[in-house]
């Protein structure tokens, strides 16, 4: 019993880390631009599918990872310039409709290029599972934990120690104030989408070896990211990360101990519950976004 619980915990932590990264990008984009990016899950899938194709050409896995991240980051930036930038000044409602439109177009594009097949990616490192306390820990999970750690450290460094990081932070606190200081909010929005694309692809390539990759998995991943972000209060980066990990563990335990058919239902109930009863989020500081 103890081993089974530990095993479920490992699975949950791995899934949760991926949810954390998606939630992290959602919250960052939302804070900076006020846009809830419903296409975020699609960045994850396109990253993973690109990696499948690149890997087929015989590239080493590290190069596959880097190229795929760069390509999807470019895609994110390109889409921002083509759509969000052109519609700047439109209402949040219009922006939301644009991102849902982007999401279904990207899903259709993935279907057109990669078809309905299920793909798998090789693990980053060779070797079997590591046995910890009687439960098997997939080495890929360790890579995923490392990715979360590197992302968080990177973001911390970016926000705390670089000019652009401080500019982004300033525009989160007060957009008008930031603009008056000469910070170009259009550039910030562009950067947010580039980062969202790159980080999404990184999450996709990392989860590929554990779960299979199909063209239509992005929607649910994106929604799970929203659940994680909502647990954390939608505008709190730290809360989003903890929310993601909590959600992963909860999902893993409920599908392992109760029923796997209801796995998705449970996260939807959590999201509805949080939105209806504690919209400020379960964890973290209550911080309303400034108008």
């Amino acid at each position, binding site marked *: 019993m103890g081993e089974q619980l530990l095993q479920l915990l490992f699975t949950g932590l791995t899934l949760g880390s991926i949810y954390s990264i998606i939630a992290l990008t959602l919250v960052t984009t939302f804070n900076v631009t006020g846009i*809830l990016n419903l296409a975020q899950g699609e960045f994850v899938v396109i990253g993973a599918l690109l990696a499948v194709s690149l890997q087929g050409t015989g590239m080493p896995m590290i190069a596959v990872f880097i190229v795929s991240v760069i390509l999807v980051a470019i895609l994110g930036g390109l889409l921002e310039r083509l*759509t969000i930038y*052109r*519609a700047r000044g*439109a*209402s*949040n*409602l*219009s922006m*939301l*409709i*644009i991102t*849902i*439109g*982007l*999401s*279904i*177009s*990207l*899903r*259709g*594009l993935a*279907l*057109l290029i990669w078809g309905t097949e299920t793909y798998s990616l090789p693990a980053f490192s060779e070797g079997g599972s590591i046995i910890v306390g009687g439960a098997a820990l997939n080495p890929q999970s360790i890579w995923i934990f490392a990715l979360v750690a590197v992302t968080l450290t990177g973001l911390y460094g970016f926000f705390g120690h670089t000019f652009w990081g401080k500019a982004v932070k300033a525009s989160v606190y007060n957009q008008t104030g930031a603009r008056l200081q000469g910070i170009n909010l259009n550039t910030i929005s562009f950067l947010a989408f580039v980062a969202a694309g790159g980080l999404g692809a990184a999450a996709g390539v990392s989860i590929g070896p554990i779960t299979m990759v199909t063209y239509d998995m992005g*929607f649910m991943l994106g*929604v799970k990211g*929203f*659940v994680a972000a*909502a647990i954390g209060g939608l505008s709190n980066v730290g809360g989003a990360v903890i929310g993601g990990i909590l959600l992963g563990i909860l999902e893993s335990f409920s599908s392992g101990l109760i029923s796997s*058919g*209801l796995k*998705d*239902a449970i996260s*939807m*109930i959590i*999201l*509805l519950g949080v*939105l*209806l*009863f504690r*919209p400020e989020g379960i964890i973290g500081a209550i911080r309303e*976004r400034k108008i």
Partner: protein
Amino acid sequence: MKERHGYKMKLKNHRGFILLLLLLIIPLVADSNYLYSTLVIIGLYAIIVQGLGILMGYAGQISFGHAAFFGLGGYTAAILTTRFQWPTLLALLASAILPGIIAGLIGRQTLKLRELYLALATLSFGILVHIIFNEGRELTGGPSGMSGIPNLSIGSFQFDSDQKFYMLVWLILLMLLIGIYNLVHSRTGRALCSIRESEYAAENAGIDCARLKLHAFIFSALLAGLAGGLYAFYVTFISPSPFSFHTSVQFVLMAVIGGLGTFWGPVIGAVVVVALNELLREIVPLLIPGAGGEYQIIIYGVILVGLMIFQPKGLSGIGQYFRIPLKKQLKTDVKIRG
């Protein structure tokens, strides 16, 4: 009051009349069941999009869960008539009320907050309801659905043909169009418009924004539920597949294509999207052999994005290109005089 009455008269004289005429002419010239069944579906979608249009165009909110309200209405009608032997008319009433109550529960909390929360709540609600339709085998019949739903009947009169159903659905739609026109030109309608323009200004003018938005949301869910009940009685069979998230996006697409906050928008949107569905079903397999219906989603996505950027007023806003703008008229006037 006088002003409101004036609008009512104007409407009766023009727009409602055109629709009524169409309603009466079509059965005279057409006798194909395919046309009738397409028109019934368009009518049902237009009823849903009417409600969604009020929610999006006037209250400035969006719902990604209207397929779920549509489905809830359908399943309520199906379950009440087949498992509990309710009379059909009573079941139809219940199929509108239940989604309304659920919308009230969801909206009460989320609408007090910023605008995006309702989008997230309806998104998750839609997915949850779709899972329940699929997994709740004892009640809903699971993925294979439920059959044997009786025909809708009022007294001894049965709506058992496509033609009768077409008349019923479009009559409801006509009454709805007139009702909404009057609503938009009433105090409530102007209050809704002011919320759309600026929530802060509306609050300062003494308008209870949260309450009004809640009413708009409940109203739109009622209409979706009513359309769902009618759908169940029309098809007499129900399964989870027409009520997925994809359908919710289609409803949003219809509202946006037709033009938000316009009189004809919902009807135009429903006609265009249903026609586009049929067209893509014919054309896509010719261009890409072996392609399934899923390819149409790319086109929907591109249309949605393109419309929001280049034509946010939808097809109803295109008319403005054909009219000479007032400024130009004035300039030419000046030239002639000069």
